[in-house]
């Protein structure tokens, strides 16, 4: 959920909205924010599953250290979504274990 009003930081304003795709579903985010923040705002918390036991993982450190938030972004797996900024039209997909680089029509 977006914190639009804040007692100290004031109102959130002049943010440029962009559309990105989560598992093919269009979603709205703020340009330049971490992908992880846009997903968290949309209530999406499971970002990937582990390779061996297929357990869910989500944001843990939010500073690019722990790698729990890795997803497939524009076809590139193992992208740390907490330190990768959101751009218009980005394709963000849940990562299942260790993935290969996704190619194909949708990435052209």
């Amino acid at each position: 959920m977006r914190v639009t009003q804040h007692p100290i930081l004031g109102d959130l304003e002049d943010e440029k909205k962009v559309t990105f795709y989560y598992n093919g579903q269009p979603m709205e985010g703020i340009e330049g924010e971490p992908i992880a923040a846009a997903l968290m705002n949309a209530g999406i918390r499971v970002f990937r599953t582990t390779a061996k036991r297929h357990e869910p993982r989500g944001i843990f450190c939010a500073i690019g250290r722990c790698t729990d938030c890795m997803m497939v972004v524009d076809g590139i797996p193992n992208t740390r979504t907490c330190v990768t900024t959101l751009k218009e039209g980005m394709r963000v997909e849940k990562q299942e274990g260790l993935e290969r680089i996704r190619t194909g029509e949708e990435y052209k």
Partner: protein
Amino acid sequence: MSNTENNTKEGIIYTGVPSKAELAAAPGVPSEERMCQGRVACIECVQGIPCNPCEGACKFGAITIGDEITNLPHIDEEKCTGCGMCVAACPGLAITIVNKAFNQKEATVDFPFEYIPLPEVGDEVDAVSRMGEVLCKGRILSVKKPKSYAGTAVVSMAIPQEFADEVRNMKRLPR
């Protein structure tokens, strides 16, 4: 002894709330007599933290910490006018302005408030203790949030006199 027995222990290091004894020993807490004479700063600062913005915020020289920055702030009851400049200046939000003789039945407490929405003048709100318990209703007298307070609002609230030693804030309003 189990670690949980401390849950029944008094004192700021166990509860986050200064005990009666700690408050009585704090040099920033004014006397009962002074609180009954009108507005005065009540500085509930009981741990030696290196911090002194309250001293600089007081234009009347009523708050003294001195050269040793970990000294507890001392309030000069005579010099303090209850102006409230120190309330927003305290990074620990540990200062209130208390007036036990607002009128025949009511006392006032001015406290720092950093949530939204802010209450409005005339609102009836839940007045809370240091532990967050709702003790009584409070009537909002003023809400100040000038730029110089750097984001902190100072709210003045009238409460029944018998709660003046306990009430230190108000319950957050639903967003």
